[in-house]
């Protein structure tokens, strides 16, 4: 008799989907909101419990769905890493909704609110599935699901620019998933399997025998390119700022905090579990990832410097942060220690914690400034809601990488990871450069929100801002505080977390 908690992953996915369906039939947005929050909380709890069961024992398990045994059928594989990630994802999702609550009900028309929450739940489900799945095709299906739901989240705030951003986002994602599907097919063609373990064996055999090298390489390239497009890897990042910048606060937070990460997690799983890092290094894939990552770090920040629209600026900085993650992946095996991988996983957590915080605070700040978004109009907004100001500052400092904040730790680990590879110099210099660039746009933003506005601007804002928005926002304050605390926890108590990640990576 297998232990009961092995059902938890499936259970949480199932819960999310059911909640989504229920939301669709619900009348009122409030109810849907409550239901969603409830489910996410429960899922967080379940994942935490799972983590509690897996991490001390240091084990991972495969959970076969239905009656089909491997190599057919459909399976879930859960280890400490997956449990940790899904716990964080669910928690952050809940906090993002909490933090963006007021904006959300302000931006989304009441009729659509239940559907919005349906999409949120679908996103949650696909995130969990992408994290847990042990089956490539399931991965594909959930990629598509998350594509649809993500597009819906963007266009929930029903403005023209948003629609267009959505359609561009949609087509980019379609490109991505198309490439992924083709790669998947080729892989299936040369191996004949879809379950990751069997795929891994087959790939290993092919790599050893050296036959079908071309289709194999093509498959790897296509799948990674597909996932790269969907997670806004450098050359394919142009769609992101508009999409994430325009959406309502909660959506932006979820999209750039979580959705992007889902694809990356799948990519990591594929890289480690199926293709294995040595093979990828031999194919030179890791170098490509590294280069794109480094370019992304720079390009994202550069485009962020040119932005004055605060949320688009944050979106651009997401591109840079994704660049960090890909750089970590590109460091690859690094003389046996997959340090880059660990650092990337940690940075996924950090970014998943900082970005929603930043987006929520930005939303709140612009709310108290009469929904202006450009930095010039946000002057002194921090004094109108101190918590938002502090939260934004903390997030920004963490992004710049000040000690005690999460960002510093991941920077530290990326740097040390680079030492155990042969690309130390370029990586370190790029890290330093991108730190400078981060400072170049985060510092002015922070200064802007904290600087006393001159009189007429203040009055102008006073009469444009509606008193309702200026009123104290409890839900936002709560989530902002929690997320801030999270940033500090990641910055100070990071050591156990890193242990979890390490064992999780080894158990992938």
């Amino acid at each position, binding site marked *: 008799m297998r232990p009961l908690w092995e059902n938890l992953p499936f259970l949480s996915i199932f819960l999310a989907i059911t909640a989504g369906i229920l939301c669709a039939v619900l009348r009122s947005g409030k109810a849907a909101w409550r239901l969603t929050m409830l489910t996410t909380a429960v899922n967080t709890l379940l994942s935490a419990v799972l983590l509690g069961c897996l991490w001390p024992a240091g084990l991972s398990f495969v959970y076969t769905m239905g009656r089909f045994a491997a190599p057919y059928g459909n399976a879930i594989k859960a280890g400490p890493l997956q449990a940790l990630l899904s716990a964080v994802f669910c928690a952050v999702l809940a906090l993002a909704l909490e933090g963006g609550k007021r904006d959300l009900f302000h931006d989304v028309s009441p009729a659509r609110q239940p559907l919005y929450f349906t999409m949120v739940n679908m996103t949650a489900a696909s995130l969990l599935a992408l994290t847990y799945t042990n089956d490539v095709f399931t991965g594909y299906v959930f990629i598509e699901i998350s594509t649809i739901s993500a597009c819906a989240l963007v266009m929930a705030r029903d403005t023209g620019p948003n629609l267009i951003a959505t359609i561009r986002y949609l087509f980019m994602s379609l490109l991505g998933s198309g490439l992924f599907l083709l790669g998947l097919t080729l892989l299936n063609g040369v191996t004949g399997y879809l379950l990751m373990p069997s795929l891994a064996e087959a790939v290993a055999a092919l790599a050893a025998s050296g036959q079908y090298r071309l289709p194999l390489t093509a498959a790897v390239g296509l799948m990674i390119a597909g996932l790269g497009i969907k997670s806004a890897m450098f050359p394919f990042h142009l769609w992101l700022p508009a999409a994430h910048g325009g959406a309502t606060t909660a959506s932006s937070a979820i999209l750039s905090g979580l959705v992007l990460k889902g694809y990356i997690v799948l990519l990591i799983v594929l890289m480690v579990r199926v293709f294995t890092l040595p093979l990828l290094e031999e194919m030179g894939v890791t170098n490509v990832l590294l280069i794109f990552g480094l370019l992304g770090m720079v390009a994202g920040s550069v485009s962020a410097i040119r932005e004055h629209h605060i949320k688009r600026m944050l979106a651009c900085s997401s591109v840079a942060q994704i660049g960090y993650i890909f750089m970590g992946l590109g460091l690859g095996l690094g003389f046996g220690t997959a340090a880059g991988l660990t650092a990337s996983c940690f940075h996924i957590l950090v970014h998943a914690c900082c970005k929603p915080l930043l987006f929520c605070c930005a939303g709140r700040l612009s709310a108290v400034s009469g929904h202006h978004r450009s930095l010039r109009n946000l002057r002194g907004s921090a004094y109108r809601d101190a918590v938002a100001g502090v939260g934004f500052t903390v997030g920004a*400092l963490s992004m*710049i*990488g*000040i*000690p*005690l904040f999460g960002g510093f730790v991941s*920077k*530290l680990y990326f*740097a*040390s990871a680079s*030492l155990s590879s042969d690309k*130390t*110099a370029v990586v*370190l*210099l790029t*890290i*330093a*450069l991108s*730190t*400078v660039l981060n*400072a*170049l746009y985060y*510092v*002015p933003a922070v*200064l802007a929100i904290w*600087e*006393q506005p001159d009189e007429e601007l203040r009055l102008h804002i006073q009469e444009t801002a509606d008193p309702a928005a200026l009123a104290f926002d409890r839900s936002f304050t709560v989530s902002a505080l929690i997320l801030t605390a999270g940033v500090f926890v990641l910055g*100070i*108590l*990071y*050591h156990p977390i890193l242990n979890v990640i390490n064992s999780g990576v080894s158990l992938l």
Partner: protein
Amino acid sequence: MHQYLSLPILFPVVMGLGLLVVRPARKLARSRYVMVSVVLTSLFALLGIQMAYRYGGDALVCVLVRFSASFSISLRIDGPSMVYGALAAVLWPVVTVYSLEYMEHEGHEDRFFGFWLISFGVVLGIAFAEDFLSLYFFYELLTLSTLPLVMHSMDEKARYAGRKYVLYSLSGAAFAFIGIVFLLNFGTTLDFTYGGVLDPARIAGNETTLLWVFVCAFFGFGVKAAVFPFHGWLPDASVAPTPVSALLHAAAVVKAGAFAVIRLIYYGFGPDFLRGTFAQTIVMAAAAVTIVYGSARALRTPHLKRRLAFSTVSNLSYILFALTLMSPAGLTGALTHMVYHAVIKITLFCCAGSIIVGSGREYVYELEGLGQRMPAVFGCFTVSALALIGLPPLGGFAGKWMIASAAVESLNPLAYAGIGALILSTLLTTLYLMTIVVRAWFPVGELDTAALARLRDPGPRMTVPLAALTVLGTALALASGPLIRFLWAVAHGSL
């Protein structure tokens, strides 16, 4: 006992935050609050230094935050800590007295003194940091906590200056970070160890990389020490209120840069590893260039505080130049000049501030004949000017002497050139300071006697600190024998 050192760090920070929150209504209450906090902090710090001197640094090692078995933010007092910490602890209260009076015409005193206290704690943190991680942490914190002070007046110039300051500093730290990462990975230990922590076994084969990394980190920390070409923020930052320019941009912050370089060279990479390498050549050349460049720019700058700022640029590079000699003698010279320059330059800046308060005149050519009207201020100014020029037995000479003799001992041609730069900058220093003195005392041409007649020395709460600083500087200079013996001991790692 084992948490004692956290006291001088946390106490002022807490008090500062308290001031930011409480915002006392009455001026007297605020002044008392600030004064008491500052004095207590200094006492804590000095007591800690005293104990460390008596019982050795290990007696009071203190861990503020422990990340993991190896990483922590921890405090320990060793030789350089004593020098830098004592410097801050002695100067801070004096300038605080001065600024309590001065800040009345600037306004927003609560905000100002709040961050004033916080940065005091952070500076002490830099002084007492035990390892590079802690140093880096306090270093970044210093930038952030002093930013509001620089931008105090919040007008366009101040905002620009503040932005420039924080960007320069953070970027510098970003490059210093590279060096720290390397030290973490190539060193035997994270803690500062006299003579360097590099592990010979591990660095074998990576020497060139490490040297480049060192250059990178040197310039990274050098940004705060305003080494050419990264000096740009300092003159602009002189729009800050005078106490800030005096204490932070003449002593605390910029010296923090120099202090970090001390840690980097003598306690991180190790002088023996660096001596005679191309890295040494690069950094030494940069320092020598800055020495001349700074004084030349100072001579051509009419704005009084900017001129002083440029002179700071040049004098800081005296220190950096001495450090790049990579020898204990050089370190002695650097520490000596660090001490004397801090006192002297603070006095000069405070005089400038008093002039601005008393007469509202900010440009050198406006100072014609002010000496007769403000004898106290210009008396202090003249004495300090002579000291900075390096007229024995006043302070500046001892530092210059130590640096130059260290340079001669180093038998390094570039160091000889550095001595030339030193002398040239002495000439320029004489010119750009004596022009002020001469204008003040020996006016030329038609004077607006009516306007002059209205001018007076500022109140005793400004002039007394001025006099105190001047006396302090002179006394230190006359006591240079024992002082330099102490610094020598520090520089040879026997403390």
